[in-house]
């Protein structure tokens, strides 16, 4: 085994795509499968430069359908496998992720959201929330992390591998083009040195022993003949999903109790939201801040009590209500009014958030 890619805590100033590649290396990812699409490309660029030095592999596939399905193959073979995509590539990726959801395969996908729908821009958005959380022809039994900084990008890519292999739901890190392309300081670390134990990856096929004699063959399928059979399988998965939800759900809040306006955001937009709320508080406005770190499962139990004690809720996102719908569904039955500052495909600054809060009071 080659030496560890990272020893000790290493401070660096780099782009988010570089951070993702380092995180995957640090997490012990064995193989990346990928297809070029902006703004994800540099994840592959950094990975292909560093991977051979640490005996890791890469395959460039013919499209994102294949990138998704080869990743499925990698995890079936018992390897910590991942891929990365964005926008129209994420659309194609959903086919394989639906299979991963059905068969409970621990795939890891890093999504670097770009403008949508269609080809739109290669720059930035938060418009892939619906697709990433609920893509495919299923129920959205996935884990979706939404990091907001390079430090979190590093941490949650590592965590994504662990959550995927622990809970066996396809796991996504929902970044965006801004995070991909921007440079900011980050601390890289070796997970083990921080006391993070990587989940053991066990193969689902190619197991030892002669199948049919020394053990049962693994017969893995995603097709069922009867609605009862499917219902049973899904009921079991849903039960397990709901059981792990409280363990997995993560959020962040600041001065959120008894807020006159509780600002709700996720991902990179939450930085603007937090900055705005801090400025508003300094100016004497009773603003609060809540951020969903996991979009699936959504931190309903954390949000509901805060929302019930707030006068207004303001959802801020670079999409047209994708987060707002999650929030509203979570808060069904509460009377606190929910407004949105919705800017599909556009970056959001603290000044804009502050203005939007002022318009509510």
């Amino acid at each position, binding site marked *: 085994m080659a030496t560890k890619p990272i020893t000790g805590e290493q401070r660096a100033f780099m782009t988010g795509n570089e951070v993702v590649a380092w995180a995957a290396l640090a997490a012990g990812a064995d193989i990346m499968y990928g297809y070029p699409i902006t703004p994800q490309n540099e994840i592959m660029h950094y990975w292909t430069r560093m991977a051979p030095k640490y005996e890791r592999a890469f395959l460039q596939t013919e499209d994102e359908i294949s990138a998704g399905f080869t990743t499925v193959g990698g995890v079936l073979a018992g390897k910590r496998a991942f891929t990365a995509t964005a926008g129209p590539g994420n659309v194609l990726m959903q086919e394989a992720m639906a299979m991963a959801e059905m068969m409970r395969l621990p795939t890891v996908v890093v999504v670097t959201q770009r403008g949508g729908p269609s080809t739109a821009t290669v720059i930035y958005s938060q418009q892939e929330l619906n697709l990433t959380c609920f893509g495919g022809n299923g129920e959205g039994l996935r884990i979706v992390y939404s990091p907001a900084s390079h430090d979190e990008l590093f941490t949650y890519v590592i965590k994504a591998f662990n959550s995927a292999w622990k809970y066996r739901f396809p796991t996504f890190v929902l970044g965006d083009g801004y995070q991909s392309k921007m440079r*900011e300081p980050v601390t890289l670390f070796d997970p083990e040195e921080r006391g993070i134990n990587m989940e053991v990856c066990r193969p689902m096929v190619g197991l030892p022993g002669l199948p049919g004699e020394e053990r049962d063959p693994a017969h893995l399928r995603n097709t069922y003949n009867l609605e009862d059979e499917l219902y049973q399988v899904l009921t079991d998965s849903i039960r397990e999903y709901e059981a792990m939800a409280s363990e997995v759900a993560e959020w962040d809040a600041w001065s959120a109790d008894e807020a006159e306006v509780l600002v709700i955001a996720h991902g990179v937009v939450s*930085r603007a939201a937090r900055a705005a709320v801090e400025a508003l508080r300094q100016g004497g406005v009773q603003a609060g801040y809540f951020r969903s770190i996991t979009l699936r499962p959504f931190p309903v139990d954390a949000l509901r009590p805060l929302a019930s004690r707030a006068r207004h809720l303001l959802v801020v996102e670079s999409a047209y209500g994708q987060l707002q719908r999650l929030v509203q569904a979570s808060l069904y039955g509460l009377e606190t009014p929910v407004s949105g500052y919705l800017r599909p495909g556009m970056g959001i600054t603290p000044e804009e958030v502050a203005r939007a809060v002022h318009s509510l009071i």
Partner: protein
Amino acid sequence: MALNLKIALAGEGGQGVQSVAEILTEAAYHAGYQPLYIPNFGVEQRGGVSVAFVQISEAPVSAPKFTTGDIVVALSHRAVERARQYVGPETLLVFDASLADDVRRVYGEGQKSLAVPALAIAKEGLHPRVFNVIILGVLVGVTGFLERRDVEQALERQFGHKFAQDPSLKELNYRALERGYLLGSERLEVGNRI
């Protein structure tokens, strides 16, 4: 008040605004600040106005882009127009002296600004390719929060392999940096707020 600088740089593809942003933020990072730099990028590999968004702070920076810059740098005709949206009443507009007419047309007479004859200096005394390093020097001079040494080390990290091949290049870059620094430090005003 703690340092919290917002700089937008706009120029044509080949003018090197992204390099200026990269070197400036590298220098700031190694000097112990928390910089954030994001280039604008689109589907065109070439041809558009290139904009770099730089923020340098003592605490982690919030949003990657901003509404109004403390300093906005415009280095071409198109950039003068394109940068308008980031210029507020308090913004210091840094532009190449050759663009004075454009600046007057777009911003009127009242805009706080600094005309830098960078193109002229580069062509006459130095070399056109170090045009952007003169601008870098101006920014270091105007903001006043970085040591020359920090910037030189960042230049070294960026261009070290080229300097090794051609030592005269290093000398050329250092002189360009010095010229810009002298021009900028005469107008040290943003840094005064530190």
